């Protein structure tokens, strides 16, 4: 069951090369592949909920699922399913306009599923070395997706993406080497030397000072991939230049998987030190810097996809802050925020893709009257903007409220003051820049109506999920988040 999670996306991505001419077959392979993947991940989650964890003996037990990565896996496969269905609508439109030919379409879907494969590999491994390898592989699989349109801007974005992320992650490799070194000198050379379970069980006997340096390097390295400021510079470029479905995956899924890597290593360091002061204060500072940097850039942004990209930096900052505060409530809220952000942001990127296809521009000033031109996309986009800035009744409101309350409870008044001030600025930025796109009359006649029937359906499903989870949290999700929180808090 565990291995199907890897086999399904890999086979799907290879199957596209058997197709010669038919766009229809490509779409069918794409949709079935991601639907099967989602089903498999649900089956695995069921086992995790019943038994606590799934392990295998493969290569000293490198694959391992417990509720922490089960949660990330759930978000990954759910968003991948919805976005690959959205991709059908989006790419068919580009194909119709002959922006892409059949060979490019095949390449796109192949890389898309390869990208999903690498993200799932990151999620289900417990070997920190393999985790590093797969996070680097996510960069490699998505570099061509970022530069997919092959124009000046997208090539520049792809070059920045691959260089900045590879260099950042090279620092994480140094951190992984130091982690392994501390495991070798304290526990001897074993095959399991980099396994999270092994390190976490023996955390007490590792050297604190080496572990601290290792965590610093890993935080910088994986933090580059998470998009924490000041290592975030690749993120707005890559997110704005990639095709919209890819932006949705980059923002909604990729950032979480890298964040998951940081969280895993943080638990080892916390257990070793006996408290979360060292890791917590680093996470809080990086989180606040990211939220602040995002707030400043959102206020002056001219391009709506870049605004959404900066908002991803903001939300990753909020998650880092919640994890850094390290109380039961804040960790629950931060983990819940991971899911909320990935669904809300992928919805927004999907909506922005529809707008881009219709208006053929990403400049906010050139777009007017979305509500009139595309009623469904416009409504979802507008509500999505309220959702992402933390308005009730959407789920992001709930999790941000949880983080704010827990920060007050833990006495982090300075942090919470900054957080609230930045959130106000971000709301101001979003409403002053983005809201004018929705009203008024369009400059040109774009034709009234949605492009196709698939994309609005995906948008409505996502909107329904984030509205419902804002009010009512399904019990399986609650149980999953709670036990994931216990893993971070080291309650066994």
């Amino acid at each position, binding site marked *: 069951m565990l291995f199907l999670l890897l086999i399904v996306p890999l086979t799907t991505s290879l199957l596209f090369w058997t197709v010669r001419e038919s766009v229809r077959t490509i779409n069918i392979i794409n949709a079935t592949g991601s639907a099967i993947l989602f089903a498999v991940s649900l089956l695995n989650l069921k086992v995790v909920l019943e038994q606590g964890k799934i392990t295998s003996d493969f*290569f*000293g037990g*490198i694959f391992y699922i417990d509720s922490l990565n089960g949660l990330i896996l759930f978000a990954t496969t759910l968003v991948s399913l919805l976005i690959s269905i959205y991709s059908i609508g989006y790419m068919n439109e580009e194909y119709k306009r002959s922006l892409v030919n059949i060979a490019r379409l095949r390449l796109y879907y192949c890389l898309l599923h390869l990208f999903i494969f690498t993200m799932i590999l990151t999620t289900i491994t417990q*070997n920190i*070395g*393999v985790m*590093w*390898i797969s996070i*680097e*592989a996510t*960069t*490699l699989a998505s*570099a*061509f997706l970022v*530069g997919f349109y*092959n*124009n*000046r*801007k997208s*090539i*520049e*974005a*792809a*070059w*920045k993406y*691959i*260089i900045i992320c*590879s*260099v950042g992650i*090279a*620092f994480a*490799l*140094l951190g992984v*080497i*130091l982690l*392994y*070194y*501390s495991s*070798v*000198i304290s526990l001897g*050379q074993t*095959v399991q*030397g*980099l396994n999270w379970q092994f390190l976490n069980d023996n955390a007490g006997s590792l*050297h604190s*000072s*080496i572990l601290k*340096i290792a965590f610093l390097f890993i935080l910088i390295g994986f933090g580059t991939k998470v998009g924490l400021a000041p290592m975030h510079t690749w993120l*707005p*470029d890559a997110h*704005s*230049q990639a095709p919209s479905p890819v932006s949705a995956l980059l923002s909604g899924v990729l950032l979480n998987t890298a964040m998951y890597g940081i969280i895993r290593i943080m638990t080892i360091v916390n257990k070793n030190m006996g408290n979360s002061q060292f890791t917590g204060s680093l996470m809080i500072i990086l989180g606040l810097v990211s939220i602040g940097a995002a707030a400043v*850039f959102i206020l*002056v*942004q001219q391009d709506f996809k*870049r605004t959404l990209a900066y908002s991803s930096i903001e939300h990753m900052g909020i998650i880092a802050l919640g994890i850094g505060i390290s109380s039961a409530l804040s960790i629950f809220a931060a983990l819940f925020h991971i899911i909320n952000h990935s669904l809300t942001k992928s919805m927004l990127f999907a909506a922005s893709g529809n707008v881009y296809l219709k208006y053929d521009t990403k400049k906010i000033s050139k777009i007017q009257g979305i509500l009139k031109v595309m009623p469904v996309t416009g409504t979802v986009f507008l509500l999505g903007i309220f959702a992402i800035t933390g308005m009730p009744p959407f789920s992001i409101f709930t999790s941000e409220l949880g983080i704010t309350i827990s920060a007050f409870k833990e006495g982090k008044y300075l942090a919470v003051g900054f957080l609230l001030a930045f959130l106000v600025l971000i709301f101001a930025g979003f409403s002053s820049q983005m809201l004018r796109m929705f009203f008024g009359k369009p400059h040109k006649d774009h034709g009234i109506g949605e492009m196709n029937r698939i994309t609005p359906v995906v948008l409505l499903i996502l909107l329904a999920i984030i509205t419902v989870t804002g009010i009512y949290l399904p019990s399986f999700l609650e149980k999953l988040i709670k036990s994931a929180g216990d893993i971070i808090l080291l309650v066994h």
Partner: protein
Amino acid sequence: MDKLAPLLNIFSVGILISTFSLVASKRIMSYIKAFRIQSLILAAVAAIFSIYYLVEENRLEGIFIIFLLTVVFKVIYIPSMLKRISVRVEYKVEKDFFINIPISIIICCGLVILTWYVVSKIPELNNGYNGSFMVQSVSVILIGLFFMISRKKAIGQIIGFLVLENGTFLTAILLTSGMPMIVEFGIFFDLLTAVLIMGIFVFRINETFEHIDLNKLRNLRG
């Protein structure tokens, strides 16, 4: 293993010196040559380890395969690929750096001293030769990073990245005598693919911009 430490120390100093010679060179062809020599020394370090395991413990470790991979890819394939790319995309020799060479060298010395200072503060890292291994290999990483930010052209950045990763491999080999096999292979192939993809992007940048001067890639800001 302790008997080998002085010998390994000489080799790792050699890698550090080759990194300095890289920073001191002006032309792309001489960077490639310096990188090739550096990889050769790295391969020698891996060879020493695999011979040691073969003679003393009579087993063939994964590090032997790392030695082969280093020779095939980093000494032979990647340098000649970079040479081909640079012949195809940039025929003119022009000034490629933001910071001139004497100042670069001084900055690199500063980086070595900084690393030495930080490592000397951590007592756990200072048993035997490990402290000096750590200083040398981490300095190589930092100098590689500095090289990347001080060069304007895409190939300069790729070389900087390769130096940086040579530094991390050196750290892994010297400190832990090789990571678990599957991890070591994964890392090697990841980095190889990264360099190949970067090479492809150099061609694309060259086609779309008619130059590979990254200083002029300034469409995306803010």
